[in-house]
């Protein structure tokens, strides 16, 4: 357990030092360590190359979302309705639980950008600032790079949360037992679309009569005619 904790302590350094340093360390160390005296061995444990920000080689974080910004749609005819501009943006590895972030992400879904920014000022949750900043960044991107004319003419078409890196910690229990603590990170994704937000983002609310009609139709459709 001690080892794990020490390794975790070293993580922070690894993250900050840039790719060039990391590469140089990955190539060098293991041979040296096996021959080093025990006292030295403790100090330069071979955690170096292993536990950096990319200790897991394929740990790139979400990559596909921003690729959508590179799609180029074919030119439209003059009589066609102009396609709505959209812009995808995200913020990764926010130190906040994805479970808690979900409430904020779902809250702003389907709002216009101005409305969302206004509402988020009054959300007393830590993640709200991150969401707000992400939306602002996306708005700026849309205007500067994606040919959106009015920055207020945008609405939040998609807003969701992904799970980021999770660090495992330890918590003491009675009788020498211990429990596990998860220090979670999350990614926040947003897609802004040009135009007015729709009246109902989800399904249109139905009256009891409509619901009954729907149910009735469903029941009747189950009947197989001319059968036994």
């Amino acid at each position, binding site marked *: 357990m001690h080892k794990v904790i020490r390794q975790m302590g070293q993580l922070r350094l690894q993250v900050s030092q840039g790719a060039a340093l990391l590469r140089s360390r990955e190539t060098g160390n293991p041979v040296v360590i096996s021959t080093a005296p025990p006292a030295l061995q403790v100090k330069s444990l071979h955690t170096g190359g292993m536990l950096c920000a990319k200790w897991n080689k394929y740990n790139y974080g979400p990559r596909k979302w921003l690729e959508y910004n*590179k799609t180029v749609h074919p030119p439209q005819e003059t009589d066609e309705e102009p396609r709505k501009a959209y812009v995808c943006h995200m913020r990764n590895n926010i130190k906040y639980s994805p479970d808690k972030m979900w409430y904020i992400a779902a809250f702003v879904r389907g709002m216009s950008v101005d409305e969302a920014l206004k509402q988020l000022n009054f959300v007393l949750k830590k993640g709200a600032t991150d969401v707000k900043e992400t939306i602002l960044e996306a708005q700026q991107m849309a205007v500067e790079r994606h040919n959106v004319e009015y920055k207020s003419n945008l609405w939040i078409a998609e807003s969701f949360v992904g799970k980021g890196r999770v660090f495992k910690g330890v918590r003491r229990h009675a009788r020498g037992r211990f429990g596990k603590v998860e220090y979670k990170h999350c990614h926040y994704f947003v897609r802004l679309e040009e135009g007015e937000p729709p009246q109902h983002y989800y399904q249109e609310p139905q009256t009891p009569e409509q619901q009954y009609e729907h149910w009735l139709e469903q029941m009747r459709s189950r009947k197989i005619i001319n059968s036994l």
Partner: protein
Amino acid sequence: MEKIASAKTCLKLLQVLPGVQQAATIPGGLAPPLQNLIQMQQVRHRQTKHWQPEFKRLRKLKFVKMDLPNLREKQEDITKEEMRSRMKERGVLPPRPWMERPFHISCTGGIFEAYVPPEGDGKKSIISTSGAKQKLEFLEKKSKSLMAVRKIRSYEESFGTDEFGAEAQDIYIQAHTHMAAKEKYKIREFVTERCYPEMMHNVKDKTIRWKFLQSLEPPRVVHARVTEVITKENQFAQVTVRFHSQQMLAIYDRFGRLMHGSEILTKDVLEYVVFEKHISNEYGKWRLHDKIIPDWLPAKEPAPITYRLIEDMEEEPPKELSAGEEAKQLETGSEQSKEQLQLTTPVESRAKPSLTI
């Protein structure tokens, strides 16, 4: 000796004692039980509500403390001292400073002795006074060009000012069609390394429809220069060709909406295009190098898009508003923004359009 030593200790004690008394009076240096009392006084916030606040410290101790890496830390936010201490801790040497500057030796970095297009070219007649003056100046400057042409011919025997026009037009068309098709590898044969970023910088997320319809006047060589770079054998030749042609240009944005130009509109284009060749290189090719945009050219017509000037953004500081004010501002926001919006030409957002006269 002993007496002196004892006296010293006595003095020390005296020095220490008032310090102790002082410590007792200052709130920070309270006796331990008192200190505990202060810590136990809880303030209940919404988040820090616990049904038994007295054991808060003990509960906190249950968690084994560990350092979490800050995953959102940016490279530029770390101070130099911080970085230094971290690297010392890890035993890492600082990276070597990057002193090299990349540059190309297969083309020059600009136009040398650029041609100055006569004002009102394509509009003024030779019979008018200014037209005649231009013609005279043109003749004066020609001797240097002739020398350069002779020099080029010494390296490239088949070079001739009359034949080069057609060749240049072919290069010109090829370069532009490849740019419109975003063929980033094929275009390298027709444009120099200096020209490449200028042509390809903004085409990435756009669709360009470009067509060379016809040549109004046959392309003509108006200017030629040769220079050596670093050594005397290393010769570069630049030839300026005048194109007067009809072209069609339409630029669509990422979503297929028309940004600039039109597909059904033909425009007369007068251009002075510089071609370059590394003549001392046996395998050198004539490539498009630059376009000359004269100072007297009238301003381009503004883009049909409204956007906010950056100066306006700087003027209004980002301020935290109370709820009431914020709501008010948002109501009036649309009107305000309309006032601040102005029409101007977004030069950088365009792929370099042809010089239209």
